[in-house]
């Protein structure tokens, strides 16, 4: 019997001890008329050999196209050591470290994660993770509402340059608490939000503003200027960052030129670029950091360093009074299980890569994107939508529907980018193209060539249509 070790003899012995005649007897408190029939829609069991064959066949069906798609999930190199250690049974099959003395592995690692994440973001405090970037933004908003006692409005400014699915998720999660997410449009020339536009949306009392850096278009927001302005107006700043990008970009803890009020108040984002494979969307993890003053508003687990009876260093879950298992209906959040294993991978990833390795990786992503954009924009009818610097994603505008171009590219083995027409119809036929350090010169040249062919073909089609018309 798969995964069940009992022998017939043991079953008999155990039933004897219990004083029951059969296993069936153990269910005698369940009303008979409610008992389940055979679960016929569930197929019968399989051996590992059969399951393996099935899963290999299904995995093979998925595309192997060259990936130039980003939009919130990125294909980065992950050192082989990362997941080999992460999936060691002792990490993989342990649970939340409630028994601290028997969980020092997970606890110390989480403390190290918090240390690395605060170093990366230049924030004071990090928790042990949220579910993903989108839900961590939602929790950051809830946190800001709890924290900003000077504001009564529960109004949050959220530029439309913030990832659309992040905005949708935040909406789902915060809407029950009468929080108002006020959208701020972006500047058509730069693909970023300007202080003027913000001020137009900002009424007297605003609780917080969200800034994504780099933003969804890959463009760089004027975070210093906006942070200073926000703090002058008692508005909390929530930074949503790509944690790899901030190894080259100014980290949220340093935003603002005013030394006195420097830094975002809360930083969130998706940890995926730091060691999580794309994996069809997850598991990733949400990073969540804040200033020291906000620590008691933090949702989720936090690990602290302490000592044991002998004064020896050790690690425990701390500030648990914030959490649901202690505080129940008054907890800072309902989160219980988090994304521990991915955090484990990410911590090992950061340790192996080092700050320099991450920085070189980030710079390579950036340069590759510049190269790609130059090559693509050399093609007639392809142009950059926004002026100014990009990190590793760029919006390109085409003369033909994005959908059609992406499909044709796919036939040539190129996953060419994200179709923006649904979320940003005002951009016309626009796609968001991404490069990471994984895309080498050959890949970029292959994309450019494919694009050229696809557009030429489309032009021919159009021409021949016109001819035949």
């Amino acid at each position, binding site marked *: 019997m798969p995964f069940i070790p009992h022998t017939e003899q043991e079953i008999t012995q155990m039933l004897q001890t219990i004083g029951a005649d059969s296993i069936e007897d153990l269910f005698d408190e369940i009303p008979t008329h409610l008992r389940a029939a055979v*679960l016929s829609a569930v197929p019968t069991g399989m051996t590992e050999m059969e*399951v393996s064959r099935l899963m290999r066949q299904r995995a093979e069906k998925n595309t192997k196209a060259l990936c130039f*798609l980003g939009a919130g999930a990125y294909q980065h190199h992950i050192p082989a050591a990362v997941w080999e250690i992460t999936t060691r049974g002792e990490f*993989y099959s342990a649970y939340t470290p409630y028994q601290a*003395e028997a969980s020092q592995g997970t606890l110390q690692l989480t403390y190290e994660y918090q*240390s690395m994440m605060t170093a990366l973001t230049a924030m004071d405090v990090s928790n042990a993770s949220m579910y993903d970037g989108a839900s961590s933004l939602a929790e950051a908003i809830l946190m800001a509402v709890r924290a900003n006692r000077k504001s009564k409005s529960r109004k949050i400014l959220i530029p439309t340059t913030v990832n659309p699915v992040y905005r949708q998720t935040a909406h789902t999660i915060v809407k029950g608490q009468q929080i108002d997410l006020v959208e701020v449009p972006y500047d058509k020339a730069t693909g970023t939000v300007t202080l003027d536009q913000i001020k137009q949306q900002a009424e007297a009392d605003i609780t917080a503003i969200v800034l994504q850096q780099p933003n969804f278009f890959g463009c760089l927001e004027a975070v210093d200027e906006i942070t200073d302005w926000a703090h002058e107006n008692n508005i909390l700043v929530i930074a949503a960052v790509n944690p790899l990008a901030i190894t080259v970009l100014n980290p949220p803890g340093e935003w603002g030129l005013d030394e006195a009020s420097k830094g975002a108040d809360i930083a969130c984002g998706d940890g995926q670029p730091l060691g999580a494979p794309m994996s069809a969307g997850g598991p990733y993890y949400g990073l969540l950091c804040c200033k020291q003053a906000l620590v008691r508003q933090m949702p989720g687990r936090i690990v602290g360093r*302490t000592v044991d009876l002998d004064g020896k260093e050790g690690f425990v879950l701390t500030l648990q009074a914030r959490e649901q298992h202690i505080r129940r209906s008054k907890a800072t959040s309902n989160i219980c299980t988090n994304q521990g294993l991915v955090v484990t991978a990410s911590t090992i990833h950061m*340790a192996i890569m080092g700050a320099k390795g991450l920085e070189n990786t980030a710079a390579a992503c950036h340069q590759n994107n510049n190269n790609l954009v130059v090559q693509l924009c050399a093609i007639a009818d392809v142009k950059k939508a926004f002026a100014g610097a990009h990190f590793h994603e760029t919006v390109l505008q085409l003369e033909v529907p994005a959908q059609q171009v992406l499909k044709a590219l796919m036939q040539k083995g190129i996953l060419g980018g994200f179709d923006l027409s649904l979320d940003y119809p005002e951009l016309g036929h626009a796609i968001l193209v991404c490069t990471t350090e994984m895309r080498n010169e050959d890949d970029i040249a292959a994309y450019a060539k494919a694009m050229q062919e696809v557009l030429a073909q489309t032009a021919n089609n159009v021409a021949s249509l016109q001819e035949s018309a």
Partner: protein
Amino acid sequence: MLIFEHSSHGRNGAPQSPVEKASVSAIPESLLRKNRAALPEVSELQAVRHYTRLSQKNFSIDTQFYPLGSCTMKYNPRACNTLAMLPGFLNAHPLTPDEQNQGFLACMFDLQSMLCEATGMAAFSLAPMAGAQGEFAGVAMIDAYHKSRGDEERREILVPDAAHGTNPATAVMCGFSVKEIPTLDNGDVDLDALKQAVGPQTAGLMLTNPSTLGVFERNIEEIAKVVHQAGGLLYYDGANLNAILGKIRPGDMGFDVIHSNLHKTFSTPHGGGGPGSGAVGVAERLIPFLPLPMVTQEGEQYRYLTAKDCPQSIGRLSAFMGNPGVLLRAYIYMRFLGREGMVRVAEFATLNANYMMAEARRRGFTLAIDSRRASHEFIITLKNEARKYHVSAMDFAKRLLDLGYHAPTTYFPLLVPECLLIEPTESEAKEALDGFMDALEQIKQEAETNPEILHAAPQTLPVKRLDEVRAAKQLDLAYRGSE
């Protein structure tokens, strides 16, 4: 020693990144980072050695019996990990066009279907990323349902006092107020109290059955009637289906919405705290409100359902598709089990729990609820031992660690004093159960003759008992260099 303490300035041993930094001169100076982040600078070997050794400091299913009640620490088949990490899955971008993502989508569709069958619900969404998020989705759907009918006054969620902490926390997060319903000594919900509590303000009742007390709620049909007649909906906290899989289905008991922790019943790993999955299922009338994304089948093709298909959906809970890697592991596990294996899970989880309960009784322990069948778990209360020998449930727990067993859940559910909530799961052999009971009995004897051993425990682990008060008072949440 922390990884930071192995760091040496300028070390960079690993061939893991471009050796030279590419130019970032296209980015305005003011937007660039000024100081490199103070991450540790270690060689790959140092990192591998450090984290390998750290891992050895953990108890885990793969190394110890881990009967942590309400957590279902069953064997995580290694094949589930290996197969879920096939390159075809790992390298799949979440926004890959559906046509190129058919292998993954097929798994997700099948998983939805199997969960429907196993729970008796009409439809499932796999979007929630853990039990708590499943609860959130469920309660948000209850909210949306009432509102869709113009029933705006239902602002209260009922929760039994034995409920998991996420239940009341979730209700509040969704904008509801919470009313607690007491539990009787026999573990059943106090039906009279429930009857008095329901009314036009009742949005719903959140119930765990079998309850966190480890017994099956015998009046479930009556409860369902009471709540439904008051216009409320019935929420099933199915974090743990281990006791009922294939035996009774929440849908058949009258529940309107349920979440299931795939990281419990369906054996995806706990990973030292996550990730999990809190897939959420609903009865017919709640289908329109299910969270996105979901997967549907059209002919031979699978595709994601979008907001266009489901305009009434409560929306999305994450950027992409919940936790696909977790969902794949659950799917693989379910294919291993098949329908016949699912029933066996319930049978042997229940057999193991009842056997351990009988053994506990035989060895002179006090059971929280003595007269009834255990479900997949049961509770010992050490209130007598605490009174007589001044030893706490925590002392027992710590001493168990010394004897090579992970401790059961302590101090939950909150209503049983000095309790140990013990959940062996079906995958443990009698040998492990007996070993654990021997240890528990030994500790009981030690408590009587030499309680100091308990107070001083653990002695054999990497650290002795840790000072939690100090941790909370002198907050040290991140390494800030060696002062």
